């Protein structure tokens, strides 16, 4: 009775596999060999035990022994970090070349690795969902591997899993470094500081060749173009793949040349849908620099609301989708015109109201003036009538007084009438034509006339 003190590999023909399986043999998928596990009765497997042969061992035997040794040294899969130096995805299988770089950028270690079928499909899908982009050359990855030594292909690693969080961290760190550089150089603010357009008559559109995903955008803006309100000049560029950055930069350059001849209000960069994983192609320094140097504000609408790309960061205005860009342009044009119309209508209305108010005020004033004038006239007439009455009264009074005085005077006059006085014994003395009421008034002619009631006579006087 010999109990196996270690795993013992067996040479089992295919037809006999069920037999060894029943005897508790196990299958090593890496070595593609059955083995009697430690602790079983070896005698049961005597006919399949690989006996040491005389002379030199065969290559396959050595590789098998290597495989056993490696399996024992590394019985379970192990996580390791590496960089993808090469990748070849063929159908549902993935073939990689993984490397470790030293501090000087030289290859310190290199190994082939692979994953197959449903396992690789699941690993790849999980990676894309986690990182947001597909496995690619240059990526740093954390892979769960186990050794794989076969007689035909030698030493390689079987990939059991890839941790997307590790790569995501690397991608995020790379993106952060890029954003830091853009921020440090002021590229994130340069385009935002450009004049923000308040209306649109000419806009450049940079979009992928395939217009399928841009249907909504063109449907929204075509009424503006058809009405002659705004022109849209289109420039095509790839938005994914190695050429994406260069083509987008070239399109911005062409739009700049157009601007110099036929000025633009804005440059719109839109992507009509597509995988979120392809956004990584827009995270390029050159794109940020081209956007920063653009002569007018750049609007981004690359169809992804959640994640900011370098293009979004550098753009003057970030819109999540092409539809939002078209809505902004259309609503700006319409709202400006509607407001202008409202303003003009308001001017008419306000001016009319103002004129009407002024006319009402003038009419009121006129009415007030008329009333005041009428009142004044009545007042003056009343005063005049008063004066007239007073005048009449005073005149009457004065007349009465005059009549009385006249009567008195007349009586007096009557009393002192010379004829009456002559009748009472008085005489009138005249010298020539002058009365001589006194001796002193005599002129010295020596002749005077004396008038009596009944006639006149001359008299002579002397010393």
């Amino acid at each position: 009775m010999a109990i196996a003190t270690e795993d013992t590999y067996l040479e089992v023909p295919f037809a006999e596999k069920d037999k060894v399986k029943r005897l508790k043999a196990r299958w090593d998928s890496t070595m593609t060999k059955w083995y009697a596990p430690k602790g079983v009765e070896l005698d049961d497997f005597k006919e399949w035990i690989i006996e040491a042969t005389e002379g030199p061992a065969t290559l396959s035997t050595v590789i098998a022994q290597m495989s056993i040794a490696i399996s024992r040294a590394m019985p379970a899969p192990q996580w390791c970090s590496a960089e993808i130096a090469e990748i070849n995805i063929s159908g549902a299988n993935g073939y990689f070349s993984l490397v470790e770089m030293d501090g000087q950028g030289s290859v310190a270690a290199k190994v082939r690795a692979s994953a197959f079928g449903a396992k690789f499909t699941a690993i790849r899908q999980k990676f894309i969902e986690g990182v947001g982009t597909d496995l690619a050359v240059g990526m740093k990855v954390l892979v769960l591997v186990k050794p794989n030594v076969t007689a035909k292909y030698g030493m390689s690693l079987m990939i059991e899993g890839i941790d997307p969080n590790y790569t995501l961290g690397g991608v995020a760190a790379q993106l952060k470094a890029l954003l830091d550089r853009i921020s440090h150089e002021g590229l994130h603010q340069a385009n935002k500081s450009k004049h923000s357009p308040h209306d649109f008559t000419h806009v450049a559109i940079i979009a992928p060749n395939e217009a399928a995903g841009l249907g909504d955008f063109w449907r929204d803006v075509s009424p503006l173009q058809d009405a002659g309100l705004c022109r849209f000049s289109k420039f095509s560029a790839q938005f994914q793949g190695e050429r994406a950055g260069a083509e987008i930069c070239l399109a911005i350059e062409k739009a700049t040349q157009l601007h110099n001849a036929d000025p633009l209000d804005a440059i719109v960069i839109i992507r009509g849908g597509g995988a979120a994983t392809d956004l990584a192609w827009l995270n390029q320094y050159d794109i940020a620099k081209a956007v920063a140097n653009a002569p007018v504000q750049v609007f981004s609408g690359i169809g992804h609301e959640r994640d900011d790309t370098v293009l979004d960061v550098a753009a003057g205005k970030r819109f999540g989708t092409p539809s939002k860009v078209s809505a902004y342009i259309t609503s700006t044009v319409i709202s400006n015109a509607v407001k202008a119309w409202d303003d003009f209508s308001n001017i008419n209305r306000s001016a009319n109201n103002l004129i009407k108010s002024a006319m009402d005020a003038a009419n009121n004033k006129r009415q007030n003036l008329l009333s005041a004038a009428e009142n004044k006239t009545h007042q003056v007439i009343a005063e005049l009538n008063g004066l007239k009455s007073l005048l009449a009264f005073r005149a009457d009074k004065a007349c009465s007084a005059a009549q009385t005085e006249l009567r008195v005077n007349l009586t007096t006059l009557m009393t002192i009438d010379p004829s009456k006085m002559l009748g009472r014994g008085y005489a009138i003395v005249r010298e020539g034509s002058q009365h001589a009421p006194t001796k002193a008034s005599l002129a010295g002619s020596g002749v005077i006339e004396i008038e009596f009631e009944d006639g006149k006579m001359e008299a002579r006087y002397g010393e």
Partner: protein
Amino acid sequence: MASNTVTATYVSAYSDLTKAVESVNNCKDIDEVANFVKSGVEAYQVCKERINKVQEMIAGIQGEHKD
């Protein structure tokens, strides 16, 4: 760097219209109204064609929706 003078002309006219309506609304002296109305009318003349085009475009879109 060149700028779009066509757009700038419309934007300036829109701004003048807004200023004119504010001036008319705040106007206390009837003698000044004529000047504000005049500047508003001049601004309107600049953007009248564009306003008409927008009205026609909106009418067209509303017509499409009715159809």
